[in-house]
């Protein structure tokens, strides 16, 4: 073990949740043992939630300390804290070189931002879960998994080496699988977890190939080294582009971009806090983080950037259009997440890495808020998730209603809220890109319209209009404070979060872009050298801001009005245009496509192998040797005739043979 150096305290940021996870796991096992004798026993499980929240709070404090420590470092370019504890892999290569992969943590403005988001939003969601998961038999197990997830996510964002990032990458995938299938007894959550894991694996394979290519190009996986040694003259470009392409493939899997996005809506089978934390705020943003981290790599290849922007735009459109017709409150939010992640990739694809991170942060605020609010609604409606059976809940759940509206306003990009600034910054950058990027801008703008529409459709169907639920069996009530307080904190952040990234046309500095400048600078320099202009006149910027506001307000209003009276419009759509309704409802039929093209052939192959290899060959061999033995036995049994005379003959033969052998030797 190396001396972690003076920044060894950084390690407590991921290790506290890991410890919390271990304690919670132990408490779960104690609870199981207590339940063996008394099935109704609660055991020490309740403690697990508090332990987990405390661990995460500690991580949050340390993240803040890290943020402060960075701010004290001057000049800006020196804002890096590195702590290495272990030379994990050392492979001596020919010609005196050697490949070394270390286990270390790197705190710089980008990773500091990510840790603050992860620990901050994560902490709020943990507190929320204290109330949401109360009474669940797997209470302690839930917190164990949740803390384990935070550990893996922190490893992902803090690792100094791509190898460490990959460990975190796999870890979050594992925890995602565990948490999606948390209620596996119901059957379909287990399948959803499996689907998520398998799709992620496809992405992970691409990720690995990308890292191999990077090793080939740079001889190391240490990110600071790669960034520092990045060739600025365009040498080895095809190799680097290929590496970036494969790594982006990994991002598509983890961040649910086209074509690997169908697992995210299914992941809603997990408990709502899981959807909020993993599938909105943190894990799915790993892909964006990776691209931002390796910004020189992507900046050096305009074609790759265009591809990323295109994929992002397409995904945004697919997600947004599908969310229009969903009935499950969580599915709407899930497709919305897919769509917003598409926006982030669009931002990355225009070279505006800081803008993408900005949207990541604001999205974490309002999407987590929306999911938690949905959870509150589901909780209060006794696990009802179909908005067609809700309505008028604003009277029954006032605090949930207010916070949810705040989140919805931010999501739909209503002016001056956090979502407005981050989304419009991305769209402005797209517009500035020119050429092909005009198309992407157009798609993005259309998706913004869709976003406003479906968001307010959701609000309208849930909280306004006539009450469509059965009053005898369902008594909606507000959630306890432990759940509503996090909602209120997040609502505050959703509304005011825009201050992080006010556009320069307002006359102020973009705080987040400034903060991230040391990390983004290498990529930005490469972009400038390629002539990637991306500068708009002030007039153009104001015009775009106005256009964005108008679109958001108009479509939000339309969405609200269309569904204020109830869900009849949905039924009308299904009757009038059933093909369109089916197409949109099934996420542009991607699930059906994958089922036919991938799942069915694999099942056939498995069945074929089971019959040919397992039944015929292996069983045949085993059973065949058994019957051969039996047959041989039956044949040889004829010598044991019971007649002494026959035995006498065999004795003679045997004696003869023995003498021959003995004499021969």
């Amino acid at each position, binding site marked *: 073990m190396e001396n972690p150096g003076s920044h060894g305290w950084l390690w407590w940021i991921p290790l506290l949740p890991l410890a919390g996870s271990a304690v919670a796991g132990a408490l779960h096992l104690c609870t199981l043992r207590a339940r063996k004798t008394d099935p109704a026993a609660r055991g020490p499980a309740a403690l697990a939630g508090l332990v987990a929240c405390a661990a995460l709070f500690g991580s949050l404090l340390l993240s803040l300390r890290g943020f402060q420590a960075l701010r004290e470092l001057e000049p800006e370019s020196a804002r890096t804290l590195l702590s290495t504890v272990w030379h994990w892999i050392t492979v001596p290569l020919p010609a005196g070189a050697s490949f070394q992969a270390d286990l270390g943590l790197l705190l710089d403005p980008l990773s500091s931002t990510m840790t603050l988001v992860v620990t901050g939003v994560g902490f709020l969601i943990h507190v929320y879960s204290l109330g949401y998961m109360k009474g669940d038999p797997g209470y302690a197990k839930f917190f164990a998994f949740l803390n384990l997830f935070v550990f893996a996510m922190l490893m992902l964002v803090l690792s100094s080496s791509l190898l460490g990032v990959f460990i975190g990458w796999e870890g979050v995938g594992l925890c995602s699988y565990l948490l999606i299938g948390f209620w596996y007894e119901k059957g379909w959550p287990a399948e959803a977890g499996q689907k998520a894991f398998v799709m992620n694996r496809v992405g992970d394979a691409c990720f690995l190939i990308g890292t191999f290519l990077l090793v080939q190009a740079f001889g190391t996986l240490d990110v600071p080294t790669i960034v520092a040694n990045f060739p600025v003259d365009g040498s080895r470009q095809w190799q680097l582009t290929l590496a970036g392409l494969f790594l982006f493939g990994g991002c598509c899997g983890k961040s649910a971009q086209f074509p690997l996005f169908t697992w995210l809506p299914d992941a809603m089978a997990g408990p709502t806090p899981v959807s909020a934390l993993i599938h909105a705020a943190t894990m799915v943003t790993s892909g964006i983080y990776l691209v931002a981290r390796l910004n020189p790599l992507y900046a050096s290849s305009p074609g790759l950037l265009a591809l990323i922007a295109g994929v992002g735009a397409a995904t945004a459109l697919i997600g947004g259009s599908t969310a229009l017709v969903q009935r499950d409150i969580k599915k709407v939010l899930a497709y919305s997440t897919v769509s917003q992640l598409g926006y982030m990739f669009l931002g990355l694809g225009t070279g505006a890495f800081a803008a993408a991170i900005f949207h990541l942060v604001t999205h974490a605020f309002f999407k987590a808020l929306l999911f938690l609010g949905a959870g509150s609604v589901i909780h209060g409606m006794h696990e009802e998730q179909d908005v067609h059976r809700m309505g008028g809940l604003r009277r029954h759940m006032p605090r949930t209603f207010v916070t949810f509206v705040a989140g919805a306003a931010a999501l739909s990009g209503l002016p001056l809220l956090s979502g407005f600034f981050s989304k419009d910054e991305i769209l402005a950058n797209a517009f500035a890109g020119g050429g092909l990027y005009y198309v992407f801008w157009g798609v993005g703008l259309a998706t913004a319209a869709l976003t406003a529409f479906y968001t307010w459709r959701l609000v309208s169907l849930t909280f306004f209009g006539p009450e469509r639920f059965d009053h005898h069996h369902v008594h909606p009530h507000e959630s306890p404070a432990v759940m509503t307080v996090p909602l209120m904190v997040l609502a505050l952040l959703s509304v005011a979060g825009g201050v992080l990234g006010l556009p320069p046309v307002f006359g102020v500095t973009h705080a987040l872009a400034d903060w991230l400048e040391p990390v983004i600078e290498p990529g930005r320099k490469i972009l400038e050298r390629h002539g990637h202009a991306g500068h708009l006149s002030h007039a153009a910027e104001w015009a775009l801001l106005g256009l964005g506001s108008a679109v958001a307000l108009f479509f939000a209003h339309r969405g609200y009005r269309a569904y204020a009276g109830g869900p009849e419009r949905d039924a009308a759509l299904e009757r009038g245009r059933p093909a369109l309704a089916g197409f949109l409802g099934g996420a542009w039929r991607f699930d059906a496509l994958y089922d036919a093209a991938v799942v069915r052939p694999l099942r056939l192959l498995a069945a074929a192998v089971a019959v040919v290899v397992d039944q015929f060959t292996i069983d045949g061999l085993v059973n065949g040797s058994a019957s051969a033995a039996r047959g041989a036995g039956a044949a040889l049994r004829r010598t044991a005739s*019971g007649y002494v005379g026959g035995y*006498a003959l065999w004795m003679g033969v045997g004696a003869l043979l023995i003498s021959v052998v003995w004499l021969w030797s």
Partner: protein
Amino acid sequence: MNVPSEHLFFLSSALFALGVLGFLVRRNVIVTLMSIELMLNAANLAFLAGSRLHSAPGRPDLQGPLFVIFVITVAAVEAAVGLALIIALYRLKQSVETDSASEMKG
């Protein structure tokens, strides 16, 4: 007697072969036993012929005769036990054919 030793051995072999033939061919179990005695005698003869071969005047080789004494004794013992078994078999099966006791088949 100046018979060459090979002739003694040939005689022993012939007697042994006849003993084997009788052992294999006859169905009467008493005759089988007698064939065994014949074989043993052939072996005795071979031992003695060998002893005769290795003896020097004044220093006879005693291993042959000693062993033959043992063989004779054991042969007698074996004949006795065999005949007792035959009597027991006869009591059970009322026959001394080797085929009469064939229940231990398969």
